[in-house]
């Protein structure tokens, strides 16, 4: 394994100081399910690894802050699944968290780490995008709140500065119930990475938010404000034309080993139609599997 110095600060200020001093040579360690693989295969070569789990200000909690839920950087997927507020108010996020890896992985992998790793296939990225998540990052210049739509650049690259690290992800709690769902396609059941991911959230005014991943360098959020996608009376032809337009930014890599671009684009359309249908049933209070 690549050699590094292991630091475990107990105060947020000490962690901030470590990143101010080491910049890009420091890497935060939360769950480690991506980082430790990278340290072992040499794709991650930090001089310093900063374990965030001993920081007093970053307990693994999901706290209510006014009309927001604040998911600490140390919250793992299993914590999300155990949280009734997440399951009831953000079901697409719970569905995505349940799809990550295995029990063993979900007991370690954090939501913040899933986002910071910036895989185009990151399961929690689409639901966090449709729910309007904000990433909270800290450095010695202070705290920055970055809308998730401004966070992803391309695989493995985010808009975080090298002296910053993520302390929390914040979610605005919906004022009225949404109909939402998360769908994914994989080569096989179990803990394969996704070939296509898609989340959909429809509100009472008929605004449809769709976010899709694994079909380009970064997950993408698109919005249909016309209300036609959520219109139960609109024909499939009309809806498919809208979806085609919303999916126009999808550009799957021809070099991926998981699926061809043709397959991914076809499945994106299938998932889009299915997600709108399921989200509408759920908006009406119905129970419908994704």
């Amino acid at each position: 394994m690549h050699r590094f110095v292991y630091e475990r600060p107990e105060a947020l200020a000490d962690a901030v100081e470590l990143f101010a001093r080491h910049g890009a040579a420091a890497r935060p360690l939360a769950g480690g399910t991506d980082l430790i693989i990278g340290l072992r295969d040499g794709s991650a070569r930090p001089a310093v690894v900063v374990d965030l789990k001993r920081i007093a200000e970053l307990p693994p909690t999901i706290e209510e802050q006014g009309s927001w839920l604040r998911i600490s950087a140390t919250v793992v997927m299993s914590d999300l699944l155990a949280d009734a507020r997440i399951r009831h108010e953000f079901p697409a996020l719970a569905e995505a968290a349940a799809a990550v890896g295995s029990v063993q992985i979900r007991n370690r992998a954090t939501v913040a780490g899933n986002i910071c790793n910036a895989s185009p296939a990151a399961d929690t990225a689409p639901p966090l995008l449709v729910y309007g998540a904000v990433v909270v990052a800290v450095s010695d210049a202070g705290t920055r709140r970055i809308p998730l739509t401004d966070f992803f650049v391309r695989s493995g690259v985010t808009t975080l500065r090298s002296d910053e690290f993520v302390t929390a992800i914040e979610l605005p709690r919906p004022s009225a119930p949404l109909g939402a769902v998360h769908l994914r396609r994989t080569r096989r059941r179990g803990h394969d990475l996704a070939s296509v991911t898609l989340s959909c959230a429809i509100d009472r005014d008929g605004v449809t938010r769709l976010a899709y991943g694994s079909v380009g360098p970064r997950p993408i959020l698109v919005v249909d404000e016309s209300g036609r996608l959520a219109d139960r009376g609109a024909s499939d032809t009309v809806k498919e034309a809208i979806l085609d337009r919303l999916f126009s930014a999808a550009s799957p890599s021809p070099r991926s080993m998981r699926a061809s671009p043709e397959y991914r684009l076809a499945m994106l359309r299938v998932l889009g139609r299915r997600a709108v249908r399921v989200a509408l049933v759920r908006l009406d209070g119905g129970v419908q599997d994704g």
Partner: protein
Amino acid sequence: MGETIQIVVTVNGRRRALDVEPTATLLDLLRDDLGLTGSKACCLVGECGACTVRLNGRIVDSCLVLAAEVDGGEVMTIEGLAPDGRLTALQERFLDHGAVQCGYCTPGQLMAATDLLARIPHPTVAEVEEGLAGNLCRCGCYVQITEAVLAAAEGER
């Protein structure tokens, strides 16, 4: 660089004070420092589950945890499942149902299945499959493993 880290960790009920390298994983600590070789070093990327142990009440892939991270924690390995040599009911059902062929994945399967039954005492087949999705068996004993877990849940003799 390479400075060792002092940790204290309770493994299978026994408190241990150890010096660990920053690069050592929990799996390295268990196998190389403590001689607990029931946890297997196999894929080392968190896919096969052969290194599954319980850490602070939750199962993890010990190949993806640094030894330094477990300071102050509590670990249970396959060796701690039957400390006095008397097999658990789940282990007995694995034997009854032929859920062990080569045996390499068995420690991880047992750790995951023990965790599953603690969380969901009467799982459905789908819940067993989901609970054990992180444990691969290349002999292909999945049917027998699932039967053994369901039998243990039913208290079948």
